[in-house]
């Protein structure tokens, strides 16, 4: 008798669970699952105000409605920075029309060598829609602090001059201006595309 009661209860619980799952799936209440590292909970992105080549101001706060990818690098970086921009180019191509709602922003943390014009020429090699933006050292340091990262100049015997140690991650800000995801260097572009599509859908 007791055994029957337990079985009955289990069946009812299973049915309830199945119904809950169905409702959750049907209403799209599943928590989003991303390939990148998620900010849990999402947090408001810090203020980012920078200069662009044409003298225009870039403000992250003005990008509401778009998903924004942010990377801190420099133009004398021959390896990981062009690799990241090259990956972004593939991401943009895969997004097709949706790319118009995505901003790709490369922030130079080497203001001594990267004036806004040099920077924009560099990022435009990869795609003319990519945004190159920078500022003075103090402003850049403040922005990096607000993202909990930092850059530092490293003297080198290289003929290319000093190198700059810089954050390796790409930061992703959603349409509402919240920091949502972090990508470590070398993330698969198909995974980035999948995540951006989710964010564009409002995940």
């Amino acid at each position, binding site marked *: 008798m007791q055994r029957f009661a337990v079985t009955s209860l289990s069946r009812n619980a299973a049915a309830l669970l199945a119904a809950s799952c169905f409702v959750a799936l049907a209403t799209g209440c599943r928590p989003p699952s991303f390939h990148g590292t998620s900010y849990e909970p999402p947090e408001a992105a810090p203020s980012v105000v920078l200069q662009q080549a044409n003298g225009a101001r870039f403000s992250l706060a003005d990008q509401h409605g778009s998903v924004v990818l942010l990377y801190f690098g420099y133009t*004398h*970086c*021959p*390896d*990981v920075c*062009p*690799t990241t921009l*090259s990956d972004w*180019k593939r991401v943009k191509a895969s997004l097709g029309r949706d790319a118009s709602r995505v901003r790709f922003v490369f922030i130079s943390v080497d203001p001594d060598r990267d004036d806004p014009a040099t920077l924009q020429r560099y990022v435009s*090699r990869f795609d003319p829609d990519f945004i190159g933006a920078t500022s003075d050292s103090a402003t850049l340091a403040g922005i990096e602090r607000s993202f909990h*990262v*930092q850059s530092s100049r*490293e003297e*080198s*015997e*290289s*003929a*290319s001059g000093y*190198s700059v*140690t*810089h*954050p*390796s*991650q790409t930061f992703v800000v959603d349409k509402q201006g919240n920091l949502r995801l972090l990508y*470590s*260097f*070398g993330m698969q572009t198909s995974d980035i595309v999948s995540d951006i599509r989710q964010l564009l859908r409002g995940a």
Partner: protein
Amino acid sequence: MRGAILRLLALTITLAALAACHRDAPISATTFELHDAWVRATPDSGSTTAAYVRFVNGTADTIWVSRFSSDDAHIVELHKSSDVAGEMHMAMFDSLAVAPNHSVTMRPGGYHLMLIGTTHALIPGAMVRIVMHLSNGAVVSTSARVKS
């Protein structure tokens, strides 16, 4: 007891086989070879870009590779990028060691050749010849395909 020893032996062989799966692909070469070289395109002369090569050492000795050069860039240097706790560092090296019967694959985010001061635009599809010296006295070269 004998059964336990046999099981331990079987486990050891299995673990060794699994470990081998994570090593470089078996080296079929019996000499020192360069493969799959490529260089990232750059539309301007006088710019800096990176090249990547796979070094295969089929000899019985460690080979040190150094003194890189190219007619398509004023200077070629060996560098390595390293992601250390979210910070990307880059360091310059004089030479690269390739152990006997092993290969080393340069790739973005790791070892790379820095081409400084390109003598002309490097357009996708073009080839860039890179020359290097080996510790056994040989001078070898490879043609790196330019990719975007």
